[in-house]
């Protein structure tokens, strides 16, 4: 192996170590899916590796990698077909039904719970709890997940999110509320 290739490999090993966290967070915020984020970050590093000669030290490596990642994200959304939104409509109907089903015909709790996981913020340090939370998030329709992620993990404005998701502001807050009802119920059910 030439020393040049060896250098390049060394360089990338350092970059992977230094920047993967941030690239992953960004991709995750943008796509709301762990698997998609992993794929996009991997593609980013592979593209960067193959076009390493184009990298001039004018920008920082992080900026360079982020700009590649952003292109990957745009491509990802471009490729996503319209059919997905039809599937998501069904998922949304189902989720709405599940949330409605928490209440009886008088709109009171069907299975009232008086104690829950409140005041236990340290739960996030618990790996089992995290995987429960993750599974509960996966059950949300994609649109709701995007709404949740953009609200809590990015600084995108509500107007901007609503435009992206093609919903009214009232509808958006309804989505946040329903997602929270769903999550509480799901965590109560699956976490002891």
């Amino acid at each position: 192996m030439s020393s040049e290739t060896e250098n390049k490999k060394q360089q990338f090993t350092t970059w992977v170590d230094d920047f993967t966290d941030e690239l992953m967070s960004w991709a995750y915020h943008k796509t709301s899916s762990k698997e998609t984020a992993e794929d996009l970050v991997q593609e980013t590093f592979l593209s960067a590796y193959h076009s390493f000669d184009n990298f001039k030290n004018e920008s920082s490596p992080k900026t360079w990698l982020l700009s590649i990642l952003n292109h990957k994200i745009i491509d990802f959304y471009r490729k996503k077909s319209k059919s997905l939104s039809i599937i998501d409509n069904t998922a949304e109907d189902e989720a709405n039904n599940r949330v409605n089903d928490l209440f009886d015909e008088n709109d009171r709790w069907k299975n009232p719970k008086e104690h829950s996981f409140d005041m236990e913020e340290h739960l996030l340090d618990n790996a089992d709890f995290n995987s429960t939370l993750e599974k509960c998030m996966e059950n949300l329709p994609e649109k709701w997940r995007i709404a949740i992620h953009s609200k809590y993990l990015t600084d995108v404005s509500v107007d901007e999110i609503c435009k992206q998701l093609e919903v009214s502001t009232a509808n958006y807050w309804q989505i946040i509320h329903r997602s929270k009802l769903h999550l509480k119920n799901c965590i109560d059910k699956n976490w002891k």
Partner: protein
Amino acid sequence: MATLFNTLFYSCKKATELIDSSEFKRLTLMQKIRLYFHKLLCPPCECYAKSSPTIDSFLKNTKPLNPKEMEEFKSRLINKLK
């Protein structure tokens, strides 16, 4: 009985909605009073009111990968770059 309660102090469905909506709009005094009595008389909704901010903080702090997964992902990446 349930209908009278609902009329005076909201249904649970409506109450949970108001609990979450207080984040983006100011409740009127009347709404606050009715919600207060609802929670007083309805432990599950009181429980929801406590859980709601906890869920917020969970959602604010989620990370795509835990430290162990992150290490595995990094070594997978490095292996691919050959």
